[in-house]
């Protein structure tokens, strides 16, 4: 009587296609999203392959080759980005600098998100004093300007990459915690959570198996945005002299070293500056696309807008 066997034959497969191929399919349809993703991946790749793609080391001094401009601006293909005041190949420094900058950003985001997500889950799910405690800690921390606090700590203890990572992580967990807490608070009252509780699911499993997967898309977007922000933060700190120290290269440090040569070696500022800007912007573009992709309603709206635009173009 209740013939539901049609469910087996219906081709609803399109709604359940492997999420990975769907992801790349959609990504390839968005110019900005694809561009953003590719550029970020490219910088990661270049950083990873740094020793294999550079002719010179990042710290190889060649005092005879000082301040050579980049390739199409009067220089040679020997030094694509030119050299700095000590004859070091800028391309090599940028590429090795990428390793440091991206590594720092990656590790910081990892640590900050782990702390932040856990804190947010606990605060949102349990509420009451745990929530109050965590929120007050966040409020207190946010009361101090982040960069200033970082500078003070780095100055007092002495800058190092490890300390830099620690300081930036301490600075960065709050935004994850706040977002997760907010989402957990709104999800907590969902009926499927109540159903899980009545089924006998313990709080830990509810947090990780029921709540967290429903936050994953939002979290991913935040993580990418934070990645971009940490790159900038590290660059700023290194620029000021509190981050990565010479002779290690990082984008911010290269930028700092170049500021004295604005007239004689403009490329020493422009190139690292542009590299930072382009990477950060690409990460933001990718995050923008990700935000729409992760939310089916936004995707439909976006699709609708594009459809209208295409129709208008056809009609004009």
């Amino acid at each position, binding site marked *: *009587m*209740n*013939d*539901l066997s*049609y469910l087996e034959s*219906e081709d*609803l497969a*399109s*709604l359940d296609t492997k999420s990975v191929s769907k992801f790349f399919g959609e990504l390839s349809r968005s110019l900005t999203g694809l561009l953003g993703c590719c550029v970020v991946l490219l910088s990661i790749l270049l950083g990873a392959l740094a020793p294999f793609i550079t002719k010179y080391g990042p710290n190889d001094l060649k005092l005879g080759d000082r301040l050579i401009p980049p390739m199409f601006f009067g220089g040679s293909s020997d030094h694509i980005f030119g050299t700095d005041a000590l004859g070091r190949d800028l391309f090599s420094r940028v590429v090795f600098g990428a390793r440091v900058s991206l590594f720092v950003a990656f590790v910081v985001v990892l640590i900050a998100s782990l702390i932040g997500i856990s804190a947010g889950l606990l605060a949102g799910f349990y509420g009451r004093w745990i929530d109050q405690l965590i929120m007050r800690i966040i409020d207190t921390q946010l009361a101090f300007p982040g960069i200033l606090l970082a500078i003070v700590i780095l100055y007092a203890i002495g800058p190092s990459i490890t300390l830099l990572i620690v300081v930036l992580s301490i600075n960065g967990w709050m935004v994850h915690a706040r977002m997760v807490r907010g989402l957990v608070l709104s999800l907590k009252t969902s009926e499927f959570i109540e159903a899980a509780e009545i089924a006998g699911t313990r709080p830990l499993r509810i947090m990780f198996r029921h709540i967290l997967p429903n936050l994953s898309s939002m979290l991913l977007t935040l993580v990418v945005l934070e990645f971009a922000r940490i790159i900038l933060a590290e660059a700023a700190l290194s620029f000021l002299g509190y981050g990565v120290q010479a002779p290690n290269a990082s984008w911010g440090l290269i930028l700092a070293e170049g500021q004295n040569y604005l007239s004689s070696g403009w490329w020493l500022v422009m190139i690292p500056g542009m590299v930072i800007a382009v990477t950060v912007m690409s990460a933001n573009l990718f995050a923008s696309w990700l935000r729409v992709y992760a939310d089916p309603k936004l*995707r*439909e709206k976006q*699709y*609708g*807008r594009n*459809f*209208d635009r295409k129709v208008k173009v056809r009609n004009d």
Partner: protein
Amino acid sequence: MIERLLEVKNLKIAFPTISGIRYATHDVTINVGANERLGVVGESGSGKSVTALAILGLVQSPGRIVSGSVRWCGKDMLDPKVAQEVRGRDIAMIFQDPMASLNPLMKIEKQISEVLIKRRGFDRSTASKRVIELLEMVGIPSPQERSKQFPFEFSGGMLQRVMIASALASEPKLLIADEPTTALDVTIQAQILELLSTLSKDLGVSVMMITHDLGVVAEFCDRVQVMYAGRIVERAPCIPLFAEPLHPYSRGLIESSPRVDREANSVEPIAGEPPSHALEIDGCPFSNRCNESSSRCKIEEPQLVEVSPQRWVGCWNREKK
């Protein structure tokens, strides 16, 4: 011959989505005359609400009307300028959730007088007086004080009365009501339906009542259109429809509707599910659930035909002999 106010012909509404184009309606023809109460009955996915929005030109982009016509007193409602003129003035609409249709930050008086001032050219003081008259007409006690209140100070039932007042403010000839009582308690529903009934009679306003509740239809409407999967499957005056439903879906709907005066264990469900918009259907959209479906039903889609005076059905098994 009843004078025809609204003529909807072969309306086809499409929604482009990421997963393909969905047709909310396929070929809908509806006519509403003066002083008439038409019921449009259907379950979710039948296309009844979208049809109402399409009549008023309110289908949200990228959804669009791809074919068919909508005429109001001869004027072409598909022309946005015409629709803008008619909408809210000659044709008014009330929705299921009155809270969502009113500005929570504006006093009731201001919202209703907006209609009067902008659409009927009243001045502010005349409008205020008229608002109080209207509130009284819909049965709101102490209308003078209540007109100065905000929507959140009203209960659901009261708010729906305010909506009716607002809709009738512009003296429309047609009121489209989309599930106006679905969110209300049954005792309040009875009050609202009685109010609509009295007012529509007294003011000579036609009502298009869109609902899934057969009880509301039976008590309120003169004529009924039954919708399924974006099509009209049956059209008939109210009493004959319930006495002898022709389309298997109409019959199934009536038999699966519980009634307070009906013995226990007597509802007969309709097997299966309404078609999801994902599928393109060959033949009659109801064929997979119909116990009378033949091979023809699965291949050819039946057209709506008049099998006896005023009785229209779209079913191969009900053809005129």
